């Protein structure tokens, strides 16, 4: 049923969908043609290029129906937890209770892209004094005030401390508008001093035991808040089961990344990989369905790898990509310029690393929270990127700046310097706004120059 792998337009998906349906394709309840999402306002879909497999169709439909799932959860009497900024830790806890559903309101940062600014969320943020000098996550404010994109959560939990100022400031603005927020502290991760007990974190970073202990105490406060809203206890047994379930997602993503990034021919486009990785942070509001979606993708990718089949030329330049893009179109652009993504660090690698199952669950979760690449030095992040560049044999590095984000002001310099000094691979720093059409020619030129540089280097 899969046919020849290809990147296709939305119009081509219309035809493909008809063919697949006629061929007996089975879909989950949220299935259907991608076109219907355009009719719902996701205008950007018209300009994107997609993988043509049923597995990818399922992935897209799963992503684009999350709002429906959240409303349905509320209808079913579940409590909704809006968890902000930590990207991966609190949802593991929340999904350990059957009557909680957690999601990241931060995800609203893609609404201006998907709806091509038609939702007016950035305008709402502007009116609240949160203008374009802030990260596009400011769209979250508009989503809260309009109430048009997700149900207002029963509980809001936000990590602060060693986080970007944009998000912290925007969350404070939200709080000032009357939305109660439970704040928890994540300290700046540091190296243990010579006389301090050191702890290894998932992903390979280290931290002092004292920081792990502190974060654990903060997560205990989170646990209490979750228990209060759920009206039931969240004991260690339930947490351990939640960690095991999260690890099922993480193991699948790790394998998917390994297969896709190391394959001779790229078996799955960068855009679908970005979205698949995104599922790790809060399971797109349905943990079990996330596993099913990833299983489909894995089966498709395995099949393509075995057939030495893929969606791009074998010669595509292997690029490591840093930071998520505000406009999904940028991932297509890389491939149109002759590149492919072989390695990524989209700010949440800690949500893909397995959580230790041989530790008390709160200890394990605290370690995971501290493994967040954003709470430590940029040099740590660069080390991890460097490790993956070697592992996936990337030939170039793209650092995608997030407009206005406080961490992007300087971290690109540090990451770029470290990677250049180690391997001498070309590094390109670009900035991608929520809708990059007006900048596309500039972005294209810059990415093409990077690709050409790598191709020249191959000849040496």
């Amino acid at each position, binding site marked *: 049923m899969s046919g020849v792998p290809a990147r296709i337009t939305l119009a081509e998906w219309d035809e493909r969908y008809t063919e697949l349906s006629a061929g007996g394709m089975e879909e989950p309840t949220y299935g259907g043609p991608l076109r219907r999402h355009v009719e719902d306002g996701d205008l950007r879909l018209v300009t994107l290029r997609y993988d043509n497999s049923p597995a990818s169709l399922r992935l897209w439909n799963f992503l684009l129906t999350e709002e429906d799932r959240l409303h349905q959860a509320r209808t079913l009497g579940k409590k909704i937890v809006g968890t902000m900024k930590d990207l991966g830790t609190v949802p593991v806890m929340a999904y350990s209770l059957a009557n909680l559903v957690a999601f990241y309101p931060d995800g609203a940062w893609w609404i201006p892209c998907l709806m091509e600014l038609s939702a007016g969320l950035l305008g709402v943020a502007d009116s*609240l004094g949160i203008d374009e*000098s802030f990260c596009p996550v400011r769209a979250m404010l508009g989503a809260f005030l309009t109430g048009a994109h997700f149900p207002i959560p029963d509980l809001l939990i936000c990590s602060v401390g060693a986080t970007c100022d944009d998000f912290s400031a925007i969350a404070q603005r939200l709080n000032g508008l009357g939305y109660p927020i439970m704040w928890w502290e994540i300290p700046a991760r540091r190296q243990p001093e010579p006389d301090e007990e050191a702890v290894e974190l998932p992903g390979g970073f280290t931290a002092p035991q004292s920081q792990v202990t502190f974060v654990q105490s903060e997560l205990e406060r989170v646990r209490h808040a979750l228990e209060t809203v759920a009206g039931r206890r969240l004991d260690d047994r339930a947490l351990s089961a939640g960690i095991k379930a999260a690890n099922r997602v993480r193991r699948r993503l790790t394998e998917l990344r390994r297969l896709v990034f190391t394959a001779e021919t790229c078996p799955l486009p960068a855009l679908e990989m970005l979205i698949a990785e995104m599922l790790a942070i809060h399971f797109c509001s349905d943990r079990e369905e996330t596993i099913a979606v990833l299983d489909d993708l894995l089966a498709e990718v395995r099949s393509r790898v075995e057939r030495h089949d893929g969606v791009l030329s074998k010669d595509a330049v292997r690029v490591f990509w840093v930071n998520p893009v505000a406009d999904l179109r940028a991932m297509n652009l890389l491939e149109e310029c002759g590149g492919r993504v072989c390695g990524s660090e989209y700010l949440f690698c800690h949500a893909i690393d397995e959580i230790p199952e041989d530790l008390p669950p709160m200890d394990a979760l605290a370690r995971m929270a501290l493994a967040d690449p954003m709470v430590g030095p*940029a040099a740590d992040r660069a080390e991890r990127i460097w490790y993956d560049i070697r592992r996936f044999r990337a030939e170039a590095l793209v650092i995608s700046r997030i407009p206005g984000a406080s961490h992007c002001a300087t971290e690109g310099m540090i990451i770029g310097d470290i990677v250049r000094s180690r391997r001498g691979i070309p590094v390109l720093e670009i900035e991608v706004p929520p809708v990059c059409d007006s900048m596309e020619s500039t972005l294209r030129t810059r990415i093409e120059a990077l690709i050409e540089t790598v191709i020249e280097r191959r000849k040496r």
Partner: protein
Amino acid sequence: MRRWAVAHGGERDIAVMKTVVYSCPFVPAEWIAAHGMHPRRIVPDAAQNGATLTGPAIGICPYARAFANDVCAETAADAVVLTTVCDQMRRASELIARNCDLPVFLMHVPSTWQTVGAHELYMSELERLGRFLVRLEGRAPAPDDLAEVMRDYGARRWDLRSARGTVSPGRYAELIARFHQDGTVDLADSDSGYLASGVPLALVGGPLMRHHFALFDLVESAGGHVVLDGTSTGERTMPARFDTRQLADAPLVMLADAYFGAIPDAFRRPNSDLYEWLKTEMTERAVRGIILWRHVWCDTWHAEVERMREWAPVPVLAVDADEQPIDRQTASRIQSFVEVLR
């Protein structure tokens, strides 16, 4: 020769002491001094040191850049302390470490403050700072020694507080900066017979750079008067007074409470204490307008602009600052603001 009260009841010549530079108000000068070192809180001067840190300027807070440049150009410093109250300053610690040889200490100042855990974390960070200073050949102070330094600072800070209203706002800001710089409170050459006049204003926001101190005179020449300096370099960030009767019991705890437990700031979560402080002080000083001062790319203060407008019972003028001196347009806006309030 300037002398500095240090632990163990003595005084030492600043010139022979190691100097620790910093800019964050949550770093207690007393703690550094008690280790036998000279705490010097920098007011960056973008005009003096411009180009140590190069690279794209987009998105970089001009204050963070100027501070990093000042530190890297600094020849008299032996160490630098930065904190996490601002993400850009947190990250500037890495840039400084990569661009100069000074030992760099990054201190985590919790954003949260309503829990015992946050206070304990701040305390533990002070203790860690202490160990860092000892590694730099500082002396770990006994509680009595710390208490003595705190008494000394408290007395001088009392003098400083007493000077408010007796000197011009610009002069008062200079006195505070000087106190942070070298610990002295020199009122000898202060303006005599100063009489406050003009529209009473609050200046609120992030830290001032050296060339921004002209702001006070600018306001005054426009017919205004800064009666409340709520910038991060002003009186807002002075720690609470030490209770000298209880100082001997647990001086480090008292020090932590006076700083972390008392300084209101926009970065705190929630930052309701800032608004409570403003409400009290503005009422007491009959403030009729607020100038909200923020650096370009400073998200923390930028996000407070509209909120403050919604909250404040008086008009709010938001002013963006960068590495340049106050320009004609900004001056004109301030003049118009004061004129309207007259």
